[in-house]
């Protein structure tokens, strides 16, 4: 292996790693606030990529129908639960929040589809279109069991993944799509060229994770999220509503997934099920971060990207084996380093 090759592989790994980084942040965010390992995260990213591809070919993305259906179901669920609790006064607000709000990006998508518009409009529409998906499915499937054990939540989230990827197949068909490049041209650094797309991916990862950092450190919303992550009961005692923070976490993660979709779609062919692999590799990164630490997750994501890239050079067929076996030393190290508590007591807040 020459230095040239190592450099190309390293840059390719960084580009992949920055995608895993964003996905890893989303996974850690959702897990720390809700204790859900959100497996369908990658599917949402794939929906955003495939919606963008649909816009580009002048078609209506089928995602619109999905979002509208989910919004209708969530509104019904919300209204029913309000009536049951005897809080009928909250119904208009529920309809506005669960029914009308998610319908807005659908209206936008419906308006821009099939028109000749600047590419950036399509990107924006694709991202906005997938933003309601995560909060809506979470409202329908995960919020009713929010206090169940982590294992039950994991199983529910796995089931959601199968549902969403099945719908993806129905909507977008088995063949993949690739979208127009976001950034043309390339940058030459010391006689070595880096494509604009790669710079954009790495740049977006840096900017978005920076924004995340600021949001967590400086804003009340971010602090509420952190508080819920640290202790749900404690957060409740100081007036933070876990359902509200969970909703926020899902929405933030959904925005991240939307970005991931439009960032990877020009660099790789996206299929209805390629989100799962992105999610799985981001999960490896999140495990390296112990599912709590954002900086460690970011490092882990870059490590996964680079190991993947070099692994594909050494043995294309065994690449994924190499990536996933990263978990073994990490888990051994983590297990050796932590003190094992007697018996983990689940905090149940009813």
């Amino acid at each position: 292996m020459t230095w040239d090759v190592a450099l190309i592989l390293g840059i390719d790994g960084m580009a992949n790693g920055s995608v895993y980084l964003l996905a890893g942040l989303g996974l850690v965010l959702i897990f720390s606030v809700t204790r859900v390992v959100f497996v369908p995260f990658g599917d949402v990213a794939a929906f955003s990529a495939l919606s963008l591809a649909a816009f580009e070919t002048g078609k209506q993305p089928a995602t619109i129908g999905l979002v509208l259906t989910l919004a209708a179901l969530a509104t019904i669920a919300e209204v029913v639960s309000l009536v049951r609790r005897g809080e009928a006064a909250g119904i208009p607000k529920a309809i506005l929040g669960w029914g009308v709000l998610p319908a807005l990006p659908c209206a936008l998508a419906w308006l821009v589809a099939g028109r000749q518009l600047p590419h950036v409009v399509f990107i924006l529409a694709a991202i906005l279109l997938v933003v309601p998906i995560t909060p809506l499915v979470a409202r329908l499937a995960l919020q009713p069991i929010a206090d169940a054990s982590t294992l039950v939540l994991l199983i529910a989230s796995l089931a959601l993944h199968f549902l969403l990827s099945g719908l993806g197949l129905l909507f977008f068909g088995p063949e993949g799509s690739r979208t127009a490049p976001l950034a043309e041209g390339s940058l030459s650094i010391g006689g070595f060229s880096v494509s604009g797309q790669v710079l954009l991916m790495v740049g977006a990862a840096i900017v978005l994770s920076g924004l995340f950092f600021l949001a967590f450190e400086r804003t009340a919303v971010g602090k509420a999220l952190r508080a819920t992550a640290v202790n749900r009961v404690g957060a409740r005692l100081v007036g933070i509503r876990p359902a509200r923070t969970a909703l926020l976490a899902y929405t933030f993660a959904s925005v991240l997934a939307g970005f991931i979709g439009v960032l990877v779609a020009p660099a790789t062919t996206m299929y209805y099920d390629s989100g799962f692999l992105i999610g799985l590799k981001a999960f490896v990164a999140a495990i390296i971060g112990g599912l709590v630490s954002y900086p460690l997750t970011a490092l882990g994501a870059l490590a996964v990207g680079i190991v993947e890239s070099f692994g594909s050079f050494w043995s294309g067929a065994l690449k994924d084996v190499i990536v996933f076996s990263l978990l073994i030393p990490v888990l051994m190290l983590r297990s050796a380093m932590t003190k094992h508590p007697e018996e983990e007591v689940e905090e149940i807040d009813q």
Partner: protein
Amino acid sequence: MNALSRRALLATSLAFGLGAGAAQAADLKVGLSVSLSGPNSSLGVPYSKGMQAAVAYKPEINGRKVQLIVLDDNSDPTTAGRNARKLIEEEKVDVIMGTSGVPAAIAMAQVAAETSTPFIGLTPIALKGKELDWTVTVAQPTQLMVDAVVDRMKKANTKTVAYIGFSDAWGDLVYDALMQATQKAGIKVVTNERYARADQSVTGQVLKIIATHPDAVMTGGAGTPGALPYITLAERGYKGPIYGQHGLINADFVRVGGQAAAGTQVPTGPIIVAEQLPDGYPTKKVSMDFRNVFQKVNNAPTTDAFSAYSFDGYLVFADAAARAMAATKTEPGTPAFRVALRDAIMTTKEVVGVHGVYNFKKGDLYGVDERARVIVKLENGQWKLVP
């Protein structure tokens, strides 16, 4: 309407009106199990449409009507096997045909052998022993296709070729065929790089290929994932010729591959470029008929190779059924007829289909020769025949 056909109509309606009229001859029954849903449905749906067109093209064989029964196997081998059993035991079909995917086709072949029913496979298939007695396939063997590619490489004076393909059975099949063909042609295969269908990037593999400075590259992918090596090779500045195989004949491959896939040369059945074939080409006339009848039945033009395999499968069946009925006087729907039909299929001589000319013999699954392949080149998003 003339008097004769009016009387015929009256007779048929009478026969139907009286239920199963004693004098009425039994229909021929064709059972088709394909993937109308699930990941293989992009193949299964055209298979089914092609079969509808075929039955419309030849609705009667020796005066017997043909009934087509189509079942969906959900892209699942187990369901495919169960469908085969259902078609044979409940519907009493005379022949079964199907399906996308080698494992599912093998499952059907096993049921066919067990129940002594002829099976016409529409995909490449791998079988051994007793199952061979009841099964043939209309698909071209991979070796035949890859041989044609290696022929081209030899003509272009290629000395070394790099290989990159799927890390699954399809990648192995193409690689093995490539190894066998290049050995004879004196070409050296310098890499055996693999990637998974869902992979995000093949940069590592392509860098390794470029490091070996091959004269040409051969790819062993299919459908949209097959475009990935093309795109990465173009990104990394590879200028040499790239060859592929028939798995890439797919509208989505062309769409996703775009400019990077332009100029690739792949083997395919002649139906893909039927209009461009010289007039004397054996399959040209049937191919044009197929195009017309498909357009009429499905209200859409054919764009794929799969519907054409169904059409050929049916033509092979129609030819064999006509001979079996004429020679043995057995009635459709009986075990004796199924044996006669099998024997007739196994002695198929020069049946002209749209993918090639079929000659089957016992113990050999495949029945096509050099007439079943042409080399095409991708130019401006269209496949062009390379003579």
